């Protein structure tokens, strides 16, 4: 994607989030923008880059901003129709196929926590880099938990972990949110079977399943 387009989309996206009350609160967890992000510095020198016509960029930006505004309005709504709450995940969509040529390192979490440790951010940035290179690819972030605690609670904790990774990919690293979905396995799909900290620490994780548009 062209740099100017990236910047325009990011700016509109940030504006839309701000105007609609910014559903997500990043007051803790992911911290500052990570190195390597393409989203900052509106004064960056774009000379020499392949720039599309201004009119096309503006139209695209306006369309995207309208989409984001509508999306955030739906997100903030207290009452919703069933149609707005339903959809097809990538792994059930016949238009997508699982990619087997990439295998990203899991992101690990602390006990009963959904906070992204600084040591884990580079793993998410690697996924973002891949998605930026392969624009026909999408990702499902899978949240997992260790076996301790209620399996019902662990199901939502796993989803919350996946959402923290989603947030970092989308809001900090600029990946189009339509290319990222979340899923929780709770405690149902441990990476390591065992009942000690060595196993538990490997099971509190977020994994990445990459799909490609056919």
């Amino acid at each position, binding site marked *: 994607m062209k740099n100017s387009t990236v910047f325009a989309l990011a700016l509109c996206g940030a504006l839309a989030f701000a105007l609609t009350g910014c*559903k*997500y*609160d990043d*007051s*803790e967890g992911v911290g500052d923008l990570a190195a390597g992000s393409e989203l900052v510095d509106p004064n960056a020198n774009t000379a020499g880059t392949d720039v599309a016509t201004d009119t096309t960029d503006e139209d695209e930006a306006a369309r995207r901003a309208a989409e984001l505004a509508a999306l955030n309005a*739906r*997100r*903030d*709504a*207290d*009452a*919703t*129709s*069933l149609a*707005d*709450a*339903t*959809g*097809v*995940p990538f*792994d*059930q969509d016949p238009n997508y196929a699982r990619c087997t040529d990439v295998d990203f390192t899991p992101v690990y979490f602390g006990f*009963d*926590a959904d906070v992204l440790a600084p040591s884990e951010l580079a793993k998410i940035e690697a996924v973002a880099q891949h998605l930026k290179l392969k624009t026909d690819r999408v990702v499902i972030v899978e949240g997992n938990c260790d076996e301790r*605690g*209620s*399996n*019902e*609670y662990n*199901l*939502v*904790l796993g*989803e*919350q972990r996946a*959402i923290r990774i989603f947030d970092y990919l989308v809001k900090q690293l600029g990946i189009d949110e339509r290319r990222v*979905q*979340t*899923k*929780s*396995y*709770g405690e*149902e*799909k*441990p990476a390591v*079977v065992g009942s000690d900290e060595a196993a538990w620490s490997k099971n509190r994780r977020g994994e990445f399943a990459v799909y490609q548009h056919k």
Partner: protein
Amino acid sequence: MKFRLFPLTCAFSLALSLLAADKPALVANVKLYGVERIPVTVATTGTTPAQTAFNAALRRNLQISGYFDVTPDAAIRITGTPGGTVVASNVGKDKVNVKISTPFTDAKAGRMVARELVDAIVNVQTGNKGFARERIAFAQRKGKDDGELFTCYPDGYDIRQLTADKHAVVGPRWAPNKEDIYYTGFLQKTPLVYRLAASTGARNLLAPFKGLATGAAIAPDGKRCAIILSFQGNPELYVYDMPAKTINRLTRTLRASEASPCWNPKGDKIVYVSDETRQPQIYLLDVATKKSARITRTGSQNTNPDWGPDGRIVYASKRGGQNVLVVMDPLKGEDSACVVTAPGGWEHPSWAVDGRHVVAENNGAIYLIDTDPQVVASALKGCAGDKPQLLFRNQGHWMNPAWCR
């Protein structure tokens, strides 16, 4: 019916068991109750497999009801021929006969007739509802994302496997119609809520929600479903009006997750779990105003609340590194809370229709727990007969029991 504490029974029974140490068959008959129970004699006849099954189920269901002890020469006497007419005499304060004349020819039907008779005896003797015919749904975990859904009766018999999917089953709950079970399954690789008819096995997806869908609990009106969804971002508590196909958000906790909602009997309040304070605690929410308040503070994790027919909730509480079950009136708060089990791995309690017994899992096995305060006190003092009773002894990792009521 009030029970008197009978403190010497434990010591007496222990002495009996020591005297009979070289006769294990006798030890098995010693009743270690700390709470007096009503003696009942079972003197029914019959030798066919169906009649034998009836007699065994009759004894077992009388014992687990919490009210009776099967002994010789009791005032309440059950006689007759199973499959023909069976009569329980001298039941209740009016000393009436309770009769059943349902014919049967197989063991399963025989057990069902025995359960019906026990429920009738409990009702006449105590005025309370019996739970013998109310099924328990539960899950089996076999491995990574590998499990199935089952039901059985409280006597542990007639276990029925309802799914054969080899996918994890989480949090089954009965609908008020006593037929549909709602649970979270991974049939489509992502956690979604399914409705399964217990008698036919017919199943359908509640809705193809985006993101997480779990914790479905059907309101007493049978139309509204409290459910945890993440289609708007963070997992939040919603009410899904099933006929109208509309969804109403009840919580807005940007940095927290909600889980395990449960309706009160009137259908205007919900208890649920939230980790707003970074550890899961139980909250009480008024559905009309959407106002909620935290109601548990003791215990580092309080989860799996279930709101019983008499207005009390039971939940799992982590204290000192282990889990106990706690019973509490949610409108009165923790001042009314009582611990009803010894420390262990207790999770997922679910009330019976009698508002006294609870089914729960403990380290991969499922138990019946009598929460009567005197029984609890006796059990915690070590009287084996009042301790939680294993639902069945089948090998496996059994979890998430939900009692139909």
